[in-house]
């Protein structure tokens, strides 16, 4: 037993990697270690989102919020649930705790209407992020920061037409997500070719691959696949290769493998909505409101996207993507 342990330790010490890995990550962390840059009191801001468990996109939003919180001397609290009732419950929890500001994503706006009104009545400033641009002002939030899904979808449709695509498939990985429906509807609207929706089970990657593969085998004329989340793009590429299809894969959002695939040309383009900025700005906006009663946007949503990212740009962004902030 001891010999085995020694051998493993020895091997891991001898076989050091000079690139990547934990050490590179720690170097990056040390470079961005946050200390408050302000002398305002230590306020508590709560963020409540509709993210499911282990969602990569929301990790980046959280990272942005955390780093802004470190800089603004904020105690940052985070809670999330993909069920509307539970999300409303978490906002209620934040009100009970008498936090100094609430950040909330309105994927299911009606379910949160009452509880947001309660927060506003209790004198807690509310900023909405990511989804719910249409309802934000009506519910009494200071500002909405995020991407308009319809506009983002339209940008994709335009880009696909520019690339001369004829037949596209929009892969929805969350049945029942209004924002996803809007993205596909927007893309359909501005796309010169035809587009149809394909529903897959996002929590089960092998079944996602199988579904896309089956679709491509059933319809060889498909020449563009659009996925709505970064983790699904490499899966769509795998499915495309397995089905021996010539389709171009494009995606919403970025992550490390998407950046790699953009550089290598396996992916056409990605649409980024800068999640880091959504978290970071939300905290900063609340801080500004507390400190200086400032609001941004003049009653209109502040947009963080869409940005079309292609292979050339992906190379520039790669180091930011690697450290988990793009």
């Amino acid at each position, binding site marked *: 037993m001891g010999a085995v342990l020694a051998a493993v330790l020895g091997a891991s010490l001898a076989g050091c990697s000079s690139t990547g890995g934990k050490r590179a990550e720690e170097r990056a962390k040390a470079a961005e270690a946050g200390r408050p840059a302000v002398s305002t009191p230590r306020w508590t801001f709560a963020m409540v989102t509709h993210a499911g468990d282990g969602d990569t996109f929301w990790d980046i939003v959280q990272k942005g919020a955390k780093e802004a919180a470190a800089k603004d001397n904020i105690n940052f609290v985070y*809670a999330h649930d993909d069920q509307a009732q539970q999300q409303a*419950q978490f906002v209620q929890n934040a009100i*009970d705790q008498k936090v100094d500001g609430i950040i909330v994503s309105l994927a*299911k706006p*009606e*379910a949160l209407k009452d509880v947001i009104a309660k927060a506003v009545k209790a004198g807690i400033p509310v900023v909405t992020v990511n989804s719910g641009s249409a309802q934000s002002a009506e519910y009494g939030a200071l500002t909405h920061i995020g991407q308009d899904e319809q506009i983002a979808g339209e940008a994709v449709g335009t880009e696909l037409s520019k690339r001369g695509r004829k037949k596209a498939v929009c892969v929805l990985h969350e*049945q029942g997500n209004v924002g996803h429906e809007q993205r596909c509807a927007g893309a359909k609207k501005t796309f010169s070719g035809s587009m149809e929706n394909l529903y897959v089970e996002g929590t089960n990657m092998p079944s996602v691959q199988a579904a896309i593969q089956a679709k491509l085998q059933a319809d060889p004329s498909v020449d563009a696949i659009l996925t709505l989340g970064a983790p699904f793009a490499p899966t769509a590429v795998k499915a495309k290769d397995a089905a021996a299809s010539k389709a171009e894969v494009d995606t919403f959002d970025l992550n490390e493998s998407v950046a790699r695939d953009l550089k290598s040309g396996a992916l056409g383009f990605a649409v980024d909505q800068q999640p880091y900025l959504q978290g970071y700005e939300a905290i900063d906006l609340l801080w500004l409101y507390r400190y200086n009663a400032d609001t941004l946007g003049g009653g209109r949503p502040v947009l963080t996207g869409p940005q079309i990212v292609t292979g050339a740009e992906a190379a520039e962004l790669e180091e930011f993507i690697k450290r988990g902030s793009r």
Partner: protein
Amino acid sequence: MSGSAGGAATVDERLAPTSVVRKLLGRPELGAVVGAVAVFVFFSFAAPSFLQASSLSTVLYSASTIGIMAVPVAMLMIGGEFDLSAGVMVTTSALVASMFSYQMTANVWVGVLVSLLVTLAIGFFNGFMLTRTKLPSFIITLGTFLMLTGLNLGFTKLISGSVSTKSIADMEGFSSARALFASQWNIGSVTLKVTILWWLALVAVATWILLRTRAGNWIFAVGGGADAARATGVPVVKTRIGLYMGVALCAWISGQHILFSFDVVQSGEGVGNEFLYIIAAVIGGCLMTGGYGSAIGSAVGAFIFGMTSNGIVYAQWNPDWFKFFLGAMLLLATLLNAWVRKRAEAK
């Protein structure tokens, strides 16, 4: 529960009086009560804002949303069966009420009643299929669960053209229905929701049925052993179908609450909640094998769930660990139950 407490030799030992302590030790919910006290004390120290009146009312509301369903699920488990479709059935009931009212431009109460009929029919289907096919309830209700999940999405998309229903807040009957299913009273900083009353009423009714009526004896008998129960003249089929319709009735109450508190229903929700109901029932002392458990226990189990899910937020911990805590608590509570029961039986 039986055993001599040292009565006189002339008295039949089964009729001998048992001490209060012994009676308490034999109750299914004892372990859960001990667990609830432990969790309460723990969060009182771990989360400063946990003990505020407003926080406790939030915890109670959270517990009631699970508890309303945990009551019939506990009864069903005492009767020896499962219902995996209970979570999505709540969503189905809300969707039916909302879409029927909207599409027919009918008074909202019409939709509410139609929804009751539809939901009861689903419950009847579960019970009927179980008694007819002799397949395990796990399989039957797993089928129902998947079918309902698909129907929820498919029908909503087909009828409303999107994945959520349209608002019915401006229709006739909405405000009176809201008063019944989703009203709340503000007493100072405390908000008491009507679901807490629904919950307590259901617990009371279920406890009365289980402990004071013939139907209650049937439920325990069917869960203890269906063949023996049938041999002694218990209507097994009727009892089982009734239990499933009980789950459906409460799913309807929960569904209407969701509809009238949020006004718009998301078609994809409810999946996974069936396990929360089962967890609440099991923490409350129900056995997976049937024949043992209580409605009060399910309420205590739901209260533990409410305290844990909100306590973690009040303590400002990372929510990533929530499921871990829930799992650990489930194991601890069930172990405690088993230990208490062994001690009680060993006397």
